[in-house]
C-alpha cells in the first residue's frame, strides 16, 4: 500500500494534466478557451485569501516571536511525545475545525519555520489538506436553510476531524 500511495503522489498530477484535456478534446470541447475561462477564477481566489492570511499570519508570527508559542508547546509536549506526535503540530489540530484561514496560516508558519520536507512540515501539510473547517461548513450549510438545531452533525464533524488529525500523523509516519 505504501508503494501504491507513493506512486499516487508521483502520478496524480501528471495524469490529471494529460487525461482531462485529452478526454475533453475527444468530446469536442475547445480546451484552450475553456482553460483560460476557468483560470480567471484562480486569480480571484488567490487574491481573496490575502486579507485573511495577512491577519492570521501576523498574529501567529507575533505569537511565535514573543516566546509564547514555545512555552505553550513546552507544556503539551510531554503529553504527546510518547505517541510520536510532534507537539508543534497540536495547535494546528485544534485550530483546523475552527478557522480555515487561521489553520492555513498556522500550517504555513510551520512549513516556513521547520521546512516543507521536515516531518513537522509534512504533517502540517497533510493535516491542513485532509479536512475542512467544520464550524464554517456547519454555519454556512445549515445557516443557508435556517436550521437551528444541528443535532449530532457538529459532533460527527469534530469526531472525524480528530480522527483525521491522528490519521495524518500516522500517514506521515508510514510514508516518510
Amino acid at each position, binding site marked *: 500500500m505504501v508503494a501504491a500511495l507513493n506512486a499516487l503522489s508521483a502520478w496524480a498530477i501528471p495524469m490529471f494534466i494529460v487525461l*482531462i484535456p485529452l478526454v475533453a478534446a475527444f468530446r469536442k470541447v475547445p480546451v484552450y478557451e475553456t482553460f483560460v475561462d476557468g483560470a480567471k477564477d484562480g486569480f480571484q481566489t488567490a487574491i481573496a485569501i490575502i486579507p485573511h492570511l495577512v491577519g492570521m*499570519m501576523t498574529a501567529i508570527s507575533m505569537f511565535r516571536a514573543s*516566546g509564547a508559542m514555545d512555552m505553550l508547546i513546552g507544556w503539551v509536549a510531554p503529553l504527546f511525545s510518547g505517541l510520536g506526535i510532534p507537539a508543534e503540530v497540536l495547535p494546528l489540530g485544534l485550530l483546523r*475545525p475552527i478557522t480555515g484561514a487561521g489553520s492555513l496560516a498556522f500550517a504555513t508558519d510551520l*512549513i516556513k519555520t521547520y521546512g516543507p520536507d521536515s516531518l513537522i*512540515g*509534512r504533517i502540517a*501539510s497533510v493535516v491542513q489538506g485532509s479536512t475542512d473547517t467544520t464550524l464554517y461548513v456547519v454555519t454556512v450549510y445549515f445557516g443557508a436553510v435556517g436550521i*437551528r438545531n444541528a443535532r449530532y452533525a457538529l459532533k460527527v464533524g469534530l*469526531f472525524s476531524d480528530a480522527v483525521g488529525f491522528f490519521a495524518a500523523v500516522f500517514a506521515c509516519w508510514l510514508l516518510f
Partner: protein
Amino acid sequence: MVNWIWLGMIGLSVLFGAANGRIQQVTEAAFSGAQTGVTVCFGLISILVFWMGLMKIAEVSGIVRRLSLLMAPVVRWLFPDVPKDHPALGYILSNLSANLIGLGNAATPMGIRAMQELQKLNANPAVATPAMCTLLALNTASITIVPTTLIAIRMNFGSAHPADIIGPTLLATAISTGAAIAADRWYRRRQRRGAPPMLPPIHSPVHPPVAAPSGQPDRPPASL
C-alpha cells in the same frame, strides 16, 4: 470564536514579548508575518490559476458528471431516506464530486442547493434531518484528491517534492471520511431504535410547531 482566538494571540504576544524582553522581535514579526501572508497568496496564484483552468475543462467536458455517476450507488446507500429520483441526490453528487477534485468554490453552492432540496423533505424546518447531517459529515471530512493550496505553499518554501503529500493526504482523508460515515450511521441507528430525538424548544414564531409526526420528526411524510 475566531475573534477571540485572534485577539488572544495578539494580546498574549505583546504580554509575553514584554515579559521575555522580546518586544522588538514581536514588532518585527508583525510586519514580517503580514509580508509572508501576501507572499504566500501571490505564490498561490500560479497553481490556482492553472488548476482552476484545468478543472473548468473537466467540468465543461462532463468528466465531473461522469465522476458523480460513479458515486451514485454509494450516495444512494448513504442517503436511504431520500427518494431515488429526488433532485437533492443530483445536487449532493455534484457537491461531492466538486469537492473531490478540489473545486471548493463550485462545491459550496451545490451543497447549499442540496440542503434546500433536503429541507423540502423536512417535517420540522428548524431541525436538521439525518440526511442533512450525513451531507454535512461528508463535507466536513472533504475528500480531496489533490490538495493544491498546500502543494503551492510547499513549493514556495522550496520543497524538493511538493506533491509527495498527495498519498498521505488521501490516506488521512479516507480514514477521517470513514470515521465520519461510521459515526453518522451510528447516530442514525441509535435514533431509529427510538431514543428520544431531543427536540429543541422552538425559538422563533416564524416556524410554528407544524406536523412533526410524533416520535419520528426526521422522516419525510409518506406522500413524498
